[in-house]
C-alpha cells in the first residue's frame, strides 16, 4: 500500500500540488485522473521520487520516501516497476534484452534462469517469440507497451506505476493494455498506480480513482460512483465526450 499525506510541490512560484492526501491500495488498479496541467504527472513523479516534494509524507508500506537516503531509495526502487508514456525501451537492446536488463542488474539468477524469466514475462503479455530478437524501433507502439509491461514485472515488483499507458494507441490495443495491467495487478498482488485521462480506461479498470483538479484532490471513489457525483469539475471532465453524456442520460 502506498499512502501520501499532505503533499506539497512547487516549481518556483508555480504551486502545483496543494495538500494532496490519498491511499493507493494493494492488489487494486489505482487511477489518478484529471485534465491536462492538473498536476497528476507531478503527483506520480513525486510519489516515485523523481521530484523532491516540498512537504508531506509518501509511505511505501510504512517507509517514508522523503526521509530515505539515496542508497535506500535505490533499494526501494528495485521493488518498483514503471510503464512510461513513450515506453522508454532501450534502443540499443533487443526486446528480449530489454526485459533481461533489470534481471541482469539486480537478480542473483543464472543466465539461463534470467532468459527463462524474461521469456515468461514476454509470453505473459502475449508477445510472439519472433519479436524477441527485434529492436524496439522495429515493433509497433502496442507491442512496445507490452514489452515495457514485461520489463516492469520482470523483477516481480510490489509497486507498478503506469504513466498514460494508452497514449498513442488505438482503442482496441488500449483495451488490451488496460486488461494486461489489470491482470498483472491482481495476479501478482501489486499496488498499481495509473496516471490517465482516458475515460474508457477509467471505466474498464478503475478500482480506486483519485481526481486531481488544479493541484488538489477533488474526489476519490470508484468507477461505479463516478457517474453519480455532485462535483462540477469532475462532471466536466467525465462528461466531456458525447458517449459518456449518453451513458449518463441512459442511467438517468
Amino acid at each position, binding site marked *: 500500500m502506498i499512502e501520501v499525506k499532505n503533499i506539497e510541490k512547487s516549481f518556483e512560484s508555480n504551486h502545483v500540488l496543494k495538500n494532496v492526501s490519498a491511499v493507493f491500495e494493494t492488489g487494486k488498479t489505482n487511477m489518478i485522473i484529471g485534465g491536462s496541467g492538473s498536476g497528476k504527472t507531478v503527483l506520480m513523479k513525486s510519489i516515485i521520487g523523481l521530484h523532491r516534494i516540498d512537504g508531506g509524507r509518501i509511505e511505501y508500506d510504512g517507509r517514508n520516501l522523503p526521509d530515505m537516503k539515496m542508497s535506500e531509495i*535505490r533499494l526501494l*526502487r528495485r521493488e*518498483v516497476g514503471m510503464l*512510461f508514456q*513513450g515506453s522508454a525501451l532501450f534502443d540499443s537492446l533487443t526486446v528480449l534484452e530489454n526485459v533481461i536488463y533489470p534481471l*541482469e*542488474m*539486480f537478480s542473483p539468477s543464472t543466465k539461463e534462469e534470467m532468459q527463462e524469466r524474461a521469456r515468461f514475462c514476454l509470453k505473459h503479455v502475449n508477445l510472439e517469440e519472433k519479436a524477441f530478437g527485434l529492436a524496439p524501433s522495429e515493433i509497433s507502439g502496442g507491442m512496445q507497451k507490452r514489452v515495457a509491461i514485461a520489463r516492469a514485472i520482470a523483477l516481480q515488483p510490489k509497486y507498478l506505476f503506469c504513466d498514460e499507458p494508452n497514449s498513442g494507441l488505438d482503442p482496441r490495443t488500449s483495451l488490451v493494455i488496460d486488461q494486461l495491467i489489470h491482470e498483472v495487478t491482481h495476479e501478482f498482488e501489486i499496488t498499481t498506480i495509473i496516471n490517465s485521462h482516458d475515460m474508457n480506461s477509467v471505466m474498464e479498470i478503475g478500482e480506486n480513482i483519485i481526481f486531481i483538479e488544479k493541484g488538489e484532490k477533488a474526489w476519490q471513489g470508484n468507477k461505479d460512483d463516478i457517474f453519480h457525483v455532485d462535483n462540477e469539475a469532475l462532471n466536466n471532465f467525465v462528461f466531456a465526450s458525447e458517449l459518456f453524456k449518453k451513458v449518463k442520460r441512459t442511467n438517468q
Partner: protein
Amino acid sequence: MFCISFRRHFSKIANKNKKTDMGLLADTGKYILLMKRVFVAPDRGRMFFRQFPKELEKLGLQSLPIVAIISVFIGFIMTMQTKLNTSNPLLPVYTTGLVTRDTLLLEFSSTILCLILAGKVGSNIASEIGTMRITEQIDALEIMGVNSANYLILPKIVAFVVMMPFLVIFSMALGIFGGYFVGVLTTIMTTGDYLVGIKFAFVPYYVFYSLIKSMIFAFLISSVAAFYGYYSYGGALDVGKSSTNAVVNGSILILFFNILITKIMLN
C-alpha cells in the same frame, strides 16, 4: 530622462551578467556533483565490462579514419608551408623536418586533434545521452534503481581516456608520414633532408607531455559532453542545443587547459 534610461539599461546588463555568472557557478556545481555520481563502483561490474569494449569501438576505433585523414593531410601541408616559409640559405636543411615533428608532437596530435574529436565524439556522446533523457530512458534506469550516471557515463569516459593515447600516437606517426610525402611527391625538398630533421634533437619527453595532455582533454571532452547530454530536457531541438554546447564548451576548456598543462609540464 537620459540618466534613468541609462541606469535601466546598465542594471539590465548587470543583472544579465549576474545571471550568467550564477549560471556558470551552478553548472560547475552540477558538473562536480554529476562526476561524484559517475565515479563510484558500478552496480554490476559485468555490465560495465560489457559496455566498455562497445565504447572503445564507438569512440576510439570509429575515430581512426578521421584521425588518419586529418593527420596525413596536416603533416603534408605543414611540411610544405614550413619549407616554403623558411627557404633561407642560413637555415640548416633539417629545419623543416624538425619544425614539422615538434609541431605535430607538441600541439597538433594532442590539442588540435582533441579539438576535432571534441566535435565528433562530444556531439556523439551529448546527443546519445540527451536522446535517452528526453525519451525517458534515463528515468527508466533511475526507476529500476540503477545509478544511471555511472552506468551510462563511466564506460564512455574510461574508454575515451584509454583510447586517446593510441589515437595520438597514430596521429603523430601519420602526420610525420604525411610530411614525408612532400619529398616524394614534390620537388621543394628531398626526403633525405626531411628525415634528417625528423631525427634531429628528438626529445622523448614531448611525446609523454602530449599523451598526458591528450588524456586530460579526453576526460574533458567526454565528461562535459555527458554533462550536457544528461541534463538535456525538452525535445529534439534541445538535444541539438546540448550537443552544440558540449562541443563549444569542450573546445574552450581544451584551449584553457592547454595553457595550464603547458605551463606546468614545459615551464
